[in-house]
C-alpha cells in the first residue's frame, strides 16, 4: 500500500507539470487549430532558461515568471513570423505541421549547439518537504501545483465567462465568420499564443526543477505526455487537460511502480494511442461537432 500511496504522490507531482503544459497546449491547439509540435522545443528552451536563471541565484517564483514572459513573447513571434503567414497562404494542414516540426528541430539543435549535448542535472530539490496523508511534497512542488490550479481556473473563466473568451471560441469555430462579425481575430490568435507560450515557459521551468536531470530531448518527449493529457481531456478544454495531466501522471507512476520504470513512457504513449483511436474527442467531450454537419 505504501508503494501505491508513494506512487500516487509522485504521480500528482509529475501530473501537475504535465497539466500545466497541457493546459497551454490544449488552448493553443483548440483555438488556433494548429498542431504545434514546436511547443515541445519551446519547453526545452524554457527548461534551460530556468536552469540558467536558478543558477544565477533567482528564486523559483522569479524564474517561473521570467521564463513564462520570455517564452510567451517567443511564442507570439513564432506565430506572427511563421504560422500566420502560412495559414494566410492557405498552406495545408500537413504543411503547417511539418513546419512546426522543422522549427522545433531548429530550436532544439540551437540549444544543443549552445548548451552542449550533455545531461544537465539540477542538484537539490528546492525547498523543504511537506507531509500529509502519506504524501510527501516539496514546497516547490506545492508552488507548481498552485500555479497550475490558478492558471487553469483563470483560463476556464476567461473562456466561458467573458466577452473575450467568447470571441476566442468564435475564432476557433470559424475564423472567417468571426472576422466578419467584427472580431479582431489576429489579436485573438496572438493572445492565444501569448497565453500558451506563458504556460509553456512556466511548465518548462517546473519540469526542469522537478526532474532530477534532463537533456535537450526533454521537450519533445514531454510533449507526448502533454498531448496525451490534452487528448484525454478533450482538445480545447482547460479542465480536461488538468484531469488528463493527473491521469497521465498518476497512471504512469503507478504502472511504473509495479513494473519496470523503463516502460513509464510506454504506458503514457500506449494510453494516448488507445485514446486517439477509440475516443478521439476526449473523455469530457460533448457532441457538438456533429451538429455542424447539418449545414448540408
Amino acid at each position: 500500500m505504501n508503494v501505491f500511496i508513494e506512487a500516487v504522490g509522485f504521480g500528482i507531482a509529475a501530473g501537475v507539470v504535465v497539466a500545466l503544459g497541457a493546459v497551454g497546449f490544449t488552448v493553443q491547439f483548440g483555438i488556433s487549430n494548429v498542431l504545434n509540435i514546436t511547443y515541445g522545443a519551446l519547453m526545452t528552451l524554457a527548461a534551460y532558461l530556468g536552469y540558467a536563471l536558478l543558477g544565477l541565484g533567482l528564486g523559483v517564483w522569479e524564474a517561473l515568471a521570467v521564463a513564462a514572459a520570455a517564452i510567451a513573447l517567443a511564442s507570439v513571434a513564432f506565430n506572427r513570423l511563421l504560422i500566420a503567414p502560412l495559414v494566410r497562404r492557405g498552406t495545408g494542414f500537413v504543411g503547417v505541421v511539418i513546419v512546426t516540426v522543422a522549427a522545433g528541430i531548429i530550436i532544439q539543435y540551437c540549444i544543443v549547439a549552445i548548451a552542449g549535448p550533455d545531461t544537465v542535472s539540477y542538484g537539490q530539490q528546492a525547498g523543504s518537504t511537506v507531509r500529509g496523508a502519506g504524501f510527501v511534497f516539496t514546497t516547490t512542488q506545492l508552488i507548481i501545483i498552485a500555479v497550475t490550479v490558478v492558471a487553469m481556473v483563470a483560463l476556464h473563466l476567461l473562456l466561458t465567462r467573458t466577452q473575450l473568451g467568447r470571441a476566442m471560441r468564435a475564432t476557433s469555430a470559424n475564423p472567417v465568420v468571426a472576422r466578419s462579425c467584427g472580431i479582431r481575430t489576429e489579436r485573438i490568435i496572438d493572445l492565444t499564443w501569448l497565453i500558451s507560450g506563458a504556460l509553456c515557459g512556466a511548465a518548462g521551468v517546473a519540469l526542469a526543477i522537478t526532474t532530477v536531470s534532463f537533456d535537450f530531448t526533454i521537450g519533445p518527449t514531454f510533449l507526448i505526455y502533454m498531448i496525451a493529457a490534452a487528448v484525454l481531456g478533450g482538445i480545447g478544454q482547460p479542465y480536461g487537460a488538468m484531469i488528463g495531466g493527473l491521469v497521465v501522471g498518476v497512471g504512469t507512476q503507478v504502472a511504473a511502480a509495479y513494473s519496470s520504470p523503463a516502460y513509464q513512457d510506454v504506458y503514457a504513449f500506449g494510453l494516448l494511442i488507445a485514446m486517439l483511436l477509440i475516443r478521439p474527442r476526449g473523455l469530457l467531450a460533448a457532441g457538438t461537432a456533429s451538429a455542424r454537419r447539418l449545414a448540408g
Partner: protein
Amino acid sequence: MVLLVYLGTDLLAAWGLNLEFGVAGVVNFAYIVLVAAGAYFYAAFTLGPPAAMGGFQEYIIGLRLPVVLAVVLAALICGVLGCLIGVTGLKRLRADYQAMVMLVISILATTVVGADTGLFNGNAGLSLIPNPLASVDASRRGWYYVAAVAAVCVLGYLALRRFTTGPFGRVLRAVREDEDAAIAVGKNVVGLRLAVQAVGGVYAGLSGALLAGFIGGWSPSSWAYVETLALLTAIIVGGLGNDAGVLLGTAVVPVLILQGVQFLPQVKSAPQLADDLGWIILGLLTIAFVFSRPQGLIPERRPRYRQPGAPEPPLPVSTADLAPVARLWSQRAAPAALSGHAQQAPGSRAPVLAVEGVVKRYGGVHAVDGASFTAAAGRITGLIGPNGAGKSTVLGLVSGFARLDAGRVVFDGRDVSRLPAHRRARLGIVRTFQLPREFRALTTIENLLVAAPGQRGESVAGLAAGRWLWRRDEEELVARAQELLGLFGMAGQADQRAGRLSGGQKRMLEVMRALMAGPRLLLLDEPMAGLAPALAERLEAACRQLADDGLSILLVEHELRAVERLCEQVVVMAQGKVISEGRMAELRTRKEVQDAYVVG
C-alpha cells in the same frame, strides 16, 4: 563511396515515403520506424542464435539465413508493418489527430525497442550485423556495395514507376486530392491506401536492410522521429509526387547536408556541432520550401492529351446535338446497366430505387426522420423542399456517405443499406456534390479518366503486366473523355488543372465525371445552382437525353421550373419527412407544399 551508399538507401526510403505522402497523400510521420524494422529484421535473420554469437547481445530470431533471403524477408515484414500502421489511419480521424498518432507511434517504437533488451538489444543496439558482401575482398567491397545498392535502386525505380504513373498513379493522386470524391466514383480508398502503405513499407524495409548490412550496426539512436523529417524535407525540396525530383532532393538534403557537414572543419571542444548545424540547415530548408516553393524544385507533371493547336469542336447548339452524351454513357454502362430494365416490359415503371423509412440523426436533431419514396427506372425523379428539409442528407444515405440510423435503401431489388459508399458507386449509384469537389491538381480530362470503372491499369494485373495490358483501354477512354468534354464546351480546358476552372466549369466537370463512372442511378445535388442560363439549359437537355436512353436520375434542385420540365415524379420533403409526391403542377396547388415553402 560511403555517401553513395547513403544516397542509395535514403533514396529507396524517400521514394517509398513519396509514394505514400507525395502521391497518395497519406500522412505517415512514423515512416522511419519501417526503415528501422527493415534494419533490425535483416540483422536478426542474418545473425546466428545469440548464444552462439558470443552471447554479448540479445535479440530475437537469429536464424543465420542467407543475406538475399534476409533482405527479402525484412522488406516483406516491413510491408506488413506498413499496412498495420495504415490500419490506424482507417478510422476517420481529423488529419491533425492522424499526424499525432503517427508521431506518437514513432516515439513509442523508439522507446519500446530501447527499453526492451530482449527484442533487439535495447538502447545499445545490435552490432556485428553481417555484410551481404562478406565474401568479397575487403578492399573492393565498398564499390561492390555501391554497385549492388545502385542496382536495387534502378530496379526499385522501375517498379516504382508502375505505381506512380499511368492509371494507378492517377487514382492515387485523386485520393490525395479528395478522398470523398474518389469514393463517389467507386474507388476503394481504404484498399488503395493500405496497398500504398504496404509498398512504401517494402521500400523502407529494403532501405533499412541495405543500410544495416553496410554499417554493421543499428540502434534506436539511428532512427529518432526526426529522421522522418529528413526524408520529408528531401521530398519537399525535390518535388512532391515527382520521383525524379525526389532523387534530386535526396542528393541535396540527407546526403549533401546531413552528411556533408561532417566534412566541415571540426571544433575540438564540441564535436557534435557539425551534426547540430546539419539539422538546423535542414529545418530552415524545410521552412523555406514550404513557404516559397511548396511544389519543390521539380514540380509534379501531368500528362497532356490535347494536340497543340487542335481546333475546338463545335459547341452543340440544339438539344439534338447532345444526343451523343447518352451514347457515351450507355457505351460504358452497357450491358450490365441496361440488362436491368431490358427484362422489364417497355413502359413499366418499376422502381430502380426504393428508400424505406430512412432515419438519420445528428446529435438530437432528426435530419431525416422516416422518409420513404421510390425512383422509377429510366426517369428523372425530383427531390425538392425548403432548406434544411434533409434532401442532401437523403442523397448521402442513398449513396452511402452517411450511415443510416434506421430504414433501408433498396437499389434494383437489392438491399444496399450496409454497403460502403464505393461499393454502391460500383453498383451504379453515383452522386455529385453540392459544392463541386474536383481533383484540383489533376487536369480536367484526368478528372474524367480517373472516374471510369474497372480500369485494367488500376488492377494488380495492370501493375504487374505494365503498359501493354491497358494501353488500348486508355486510348478509348481518352477518346470518350475528349468527346464528352467537347459536348459540354470544355475541350479547350482538357489539359488545364481542374483547380483553375471557373465555378460553372467545375459544376459541369462534376456531372461529366459522374457520367464517366458508369452510373445506373445518378444522384445530382443542385447541379443547376449558380450555372449561367445557357449552361443550365445544356445540362437540362443532357439529363433528358440520358433519361431517354435509360439512365435513372434523382435530382435535388431548387430551380423548380427546371424540375417541372424534367421530372414526372417529384418528391417534396420538409423537416426530414416526405410530405407530398406527384407531378409538379399538382404539387403547386397542394396546401402542405405551399405551407412548407412559405412557412417552413
